[in-house]
């Protein structure tokens, strides 16, 4: 239907949606295949990127903090309490609070996502290190290994299961919290979900994006389990 008003704009035919789409039926494959490239795939890749950066940075910070607390026990309580407190800040609030500081950018989202990974990663790395039996550490010292060598060759490998367990939880919850980020930054799989909710609860978009998020989380979890088996072949998971 082309509308031509005298001197007015040309209104092109934008193409009618399929019956499935306009009637908001349960699930429209036509929409998914039509919009995989422009909506779903970019969202998926953005989500991967958001999660990857957050877990990597969170791990680096938590690792350093855990090492510090491992050597200086008195640091454990303040660090732990800080991470604990960060975790109780509702994600919706933290994202918005950061906007005046770092703008509506990926940085803002990343800062918040990193904050939420810290508690789990810090606790798990620390507990993993502490779980190394004292006799083993003594044996290493007896064999003439220096502190850093013991850390690298004995304590860390033994702590790996706990560390990977922490990574698994942190990754999966980051994937989940990153969907909320779409409230301030239109990136990631949360965006199609929000759009779907506000556009008359568009079932297909919500189901498609939601299913992708769940699959992403399960895949990440499985990958990390495989990684653990690779790194610690002497343990059966």
């Amino acid at each position, binding site marked *: 239907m082309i*509308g031509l*008003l005298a001197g*007015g*704009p*040309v*209104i*092109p035919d*934008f*193409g*009618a*949606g399929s019956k499935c*789409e*306009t009637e908001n039926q349960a699930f429209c494959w036509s*929409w998914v295949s039509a*919009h995989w490239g*422009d*909506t779903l795939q970019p969202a998926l890749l953005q989500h991967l990127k958001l999660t990857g950066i957050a877990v990597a*940075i969170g791990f*680096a*910070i938590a*690792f*350093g*903090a855990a*090492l*510090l607390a491992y*050597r200086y026990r008195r640091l454990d309580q303040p660090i732990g309490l800080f991470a604990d407190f960060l975790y109780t800040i509702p994600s919706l609030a933290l994202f918005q609070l950061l906007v*005046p500081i*770092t*703008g*509506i*950018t*990926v*940085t803002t989202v*990343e*800062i918040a996502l*990193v904050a939420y990974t810290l508690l789990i990663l810090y606790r798990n790395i620390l507990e993993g290190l502490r779980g190394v039996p004292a006799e083993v550490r003594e044996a290493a010292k007896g064999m003439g290994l*220096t*502190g*850093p060598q013991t*850390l690298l060759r004995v304590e860390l490998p033994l702590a790996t299961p706990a560390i990977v367990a922490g990574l698994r939880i942190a990754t999966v919850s980051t994937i989940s919290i990153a969907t909320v980020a*779409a409230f*301030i*930054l*239109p990136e990631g799989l949360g*965006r199609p979900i929000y759009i779907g*909710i*506000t*556009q*008359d*609860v*568009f079932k297909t*978009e919500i189901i498609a994006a939601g299913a992708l998020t769940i699959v992403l989380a399960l895949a990440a979890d499985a990958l990390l389990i495989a990684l653990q088996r690779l790194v610690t072949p002497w343990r059966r998971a």
Partner: protein
Amino acid sequence: MVRKHARRAVKAAFALALAIPIVLGGTANAKTTASPTIVVGTKNFTEAFVLGQLYKQALEAKGFKVGYKENIGSSELLDTALTSGKVNFAPEYTGILALNLARVKPAPKSAAATFAAAKRFEERRGFTLLKQTPFFDADSFAVLKTTAAKYGLKKISDLKKVPKLSYAGYPECDKRITCLLGLKQVYGLKNIKFVQLGTIPVTKLIDQGKVTGGDIFTTEPAFATGKYVALADDKHIFGFQNVAPVVSKKIVAAYGAKFVSAVNAVSAKLTNAAMIAMNKAVAVDKKTPAAVAKAFLQANGLL
């Protein structure tokens, strides 16, 4: 000896862990000293996305580099984004500028007067308004045609006849003289009940009889169905709501006439019919705002 090495290793790891986010954050916020980038900001609903894409793509076609911040939120948040410099180009509704932000009294009586008042307001703050669009997207008190027939409603003043009056509006509505406060004070509908809209679309609430009427914007695809009628706003509380791009004066100064004429060329083509069609394509036919904007610009020789 051992402990000194361990401490060094730990300090190094910690420093590195802190450095990475600082560096990343720093490069992300690096300020450019070259000419300012045009950053378009939009609100968070279908029409806003379409408008944003229209201006963005049209400007890019003319060779301008355009940053894009979609989904900022309500007028108040968009205004904050403008004044804090996060965006410098924001399509906004003239009535909201004049009545809600500028608080002009008495309310302007025409679209042109509203535009002039809004422009005066923004120019005091370092911004200016480019030409306004033909279309207007005002709030409305929309009811089912059957409801209007039942109570003989033609204008909002007629609502005095309706018992148990209720109105579904957006969260910001209950604080605005251009919305609920206007209905209560200007129209004297003191006992009107306000239902805040969340995720359930206003049309559904009206259809199900949960409210007498609701805020269906005048360019929403719902009006294309013929089921609803917007009662005449005889006391003009909803104001005149054409769209005009709020642009930072720095941007206009930096890019001059070529920029201004490119933007005005787009605005001139945006009639009510055009907007309703584009909104329908996105909201009902589930096309993406980017694709719809592109098709429209191409059909009108702006791309």
